[in-house]
């Protein structure tokens, strides 16, 4: 990708425009006769996996559209540049070198670590796909902001629902030896103990079997569990992998950051706009990418953010972000994780299953009363931002 010759630093050279602008939070503008704008580039790192790349692209495109619906009212515009990650972290770094105001990525195996390389180079990055706890702890970076929930948040959502509300206190863990699996198991041991439950070795006697596996292992473990006679609502997992199970093997309770059937707080409108545009449901990855673009757009308009440092300052100021989840979403000071409610989806009743709906329905939303009950608390955080 050749650098855009119009981009100097992070902004197009300013052209004259009509109307008046004020920085720091408010602005008013009469309708503008000429389209002279400040243009800001946002880089998007696509994963190699085509399906995931499509989800990310679609969410980013809708987010760009929404961001520009606001930005263009005030003489600004965002544009996207994309690069595909090849596993060496160079895609994000290239986008940053070419002048991207922010780099969005983190999707796919190793996507989080690859994205952080751009942060190490000085770029402001938004993670929309990597839930790894270590990226919010030992590997945290002040220039990195995590839109997608962390492993700990997902697990806390499950324990809050299943232990606190449904009193299912004995948990067993089925691991696959993967790094993701190890993180889930570690988070589970902390979370279950915090809520008064116990992790036991006997998977037969356990109330809940938690799948400590990466996406590739989910289907096999769920299928085995159901084949062994386990009730689907006694299997629990993290993320959307379970939602891609075939209908006849659909099972488990899955903690996730978004669901395409959410309706409250204008989620219906957002899901509807996505579906009308792409004839496909809005996935968790698509929502996170949409949110990232919208956040950058708001930084550009509300705070006049024109470079990475200003973007960091805006995000750290905890502006209330409307993610269509009903609560003001803000980034935590101690690890830059976006606070947000999560959802637990489970198998739909057989008679409700339709072609477009998929086998899973949202059973509960979790965390609204205290968003910091999900994920790593400040006292437990191992993140130390460099000054």
């Amino acid at each position: 990708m050749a650098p855009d010759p119009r981009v100097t630093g992070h902004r197009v050279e300013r052209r004259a425009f009509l109307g008046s602008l004020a920085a720091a939070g408010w602005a008013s503008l009469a309708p503008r006769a000429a389209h002279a704008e400040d243009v800001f580039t946002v880089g998007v790192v696509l994963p190699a996996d085509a399906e995931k790349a499509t989800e990310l692209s679609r969410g980013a495109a809708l987010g760009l559209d929404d961001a520009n619906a606001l930005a263009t009212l005030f003489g600004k515009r965002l544009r996207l540049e994309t690069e595909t990650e090849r596993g060496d972290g160079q895609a994000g770094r290239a986008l940053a070198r070419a002048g991207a105001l922010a780099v969005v990525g983190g999707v796919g195996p190793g996507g989080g670590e690859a994205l952080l390389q751009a942060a190490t180079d000085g770029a402001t990055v938004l993670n929309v796909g990597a839930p790894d706890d270590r990226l919010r702890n030992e590997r945290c970076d002040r220039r990195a902001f995590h839109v997608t929930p962390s492993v700990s948040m997902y697990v806390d959502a499950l324990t809050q629902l299943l232990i606190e509300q449904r009193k299912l206190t004995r948990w067993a863990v089925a691991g696959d030896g993967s790094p993701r699996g190890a993180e889930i198991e570690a988070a589970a041991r902390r979370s279950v103990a915090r809520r008064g439950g116990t992790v036991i070795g006997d998977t037969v006697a356990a109330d809940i079997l938690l799948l400590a596996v990466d996406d590739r292992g989910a289907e096999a473990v769920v299928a085995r569990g159901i084949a062994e006679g386990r009730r689907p609502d006694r299997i629990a997992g993290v993320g959307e992998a379970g939602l891609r199970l075939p209908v006849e093997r659909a099972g488990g309770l899955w903690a996730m950051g978004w669901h395409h059937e959410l309706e409250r707080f204008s989620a219906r409108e957002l899901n509807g706009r996505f579906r009308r545009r792409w004839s496909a449901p809005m996935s968790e990855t698509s929502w996170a990418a949409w949110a990232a673009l919208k956040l950058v757009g708001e930084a550009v308009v509300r705070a006049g953010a024109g470079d990475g440092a200003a973007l960091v300052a805006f995000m750290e100021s905890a502006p209330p972000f409307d993610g269509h989840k009903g609560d003001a979403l803000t980034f935590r000071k101690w690890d830059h994780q976006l606070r947000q409610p999560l959802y637990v989806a489970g198998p739909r009743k057989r008679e409700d299953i339709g072609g477009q709906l998929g086998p899973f329905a949202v059973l509960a939303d979790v965390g609204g009363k205290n968003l910091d009950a999900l994920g790593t608390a400040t006292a437990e955080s191992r993140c130390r931002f460099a000054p």
Partner: protein
Amino acid sequence: MTPDWVRVALLSLALLGAVATSGAAEPLVYVSNERGNSVTVIDAATDKVVASIPVGNRPRGIGVSPDGRTIYVALGNDNVIAVVDAASRVVKARFAAGTDPETFAVSPDGTRLYVSNEDANTASVLDTKTGKVLATIPVGREPEGVAVSPDGRLVYVTAETTHTISVIDTSALKTVATILVGSRPRESAFTPDGQRAFATAEIGGAVSVIDVAKNAVVATLKLDRPAPKPKGVVVHPSGKWAYVANGGSNDVAVIDVGALRIADFIPVGIRPWGLGITRDGKKLYVANGVSESVSVIDTASQKVVATIPVGKAPWGIAVGR
């Protein structure tokens, strides 16, 4: 024998008393019930329900003509504004109003309705005599709240996704300015002198104070409540107070307009959204969507003096004559 002049005087006094009594009749309060598909009618004199009017599917925004004779109700699932005769309490017409009409405002002279069309990112202007669409005006993304300035010159349309207010000139029928306000603005209201307006930001948890002449936010009042989620806003006819329904914290914030500060919070029912104030300013009615009731606030004491059960999921309130 009573002198003629005394009898005339007594008769005149009696007549004057009758006229004064009929002119001071308490108004009717109309409540849209989103899931009840009806409008509840409350007599403000007694705070009792006097009627329930079936109107159509998913009523939300509600308004009354200046003469009190017509009630308008936005029916989101029918894509119309129902026109209800206040005397007979019968739907007498339905105006096509674009897709999923949610809220609207009645012009001060009663000749127009300004309707927000959320799916289309537009505002429609309807002629109240014919129902004809006079104009369709692009506004911000996901428009919702609509308010008309007291002199009828300006219309404010809030937009939830762009966090803006589009300022429409009602003579030119076009947007003449855009004001950036708090996150997820829901509704706005003008002061009686038309100099200021207040806009609620549901996710921002605050109220933007707007200088109307400057088209600019001059103050932001933070609502010091956990997740207040402000929605409805009205201004007292005296211009001294503004009231904000906090759907998240289940109370009504009282704003001192002169000092621009939050003066009080009045606990009401669960998920208060719609607000309506009587023309004399004595009573404020609050629609509590989840507790399916209306709280009546005496504005002098700033206390709830009655709670009235209404229909399913009450949403909006309009006060008639």
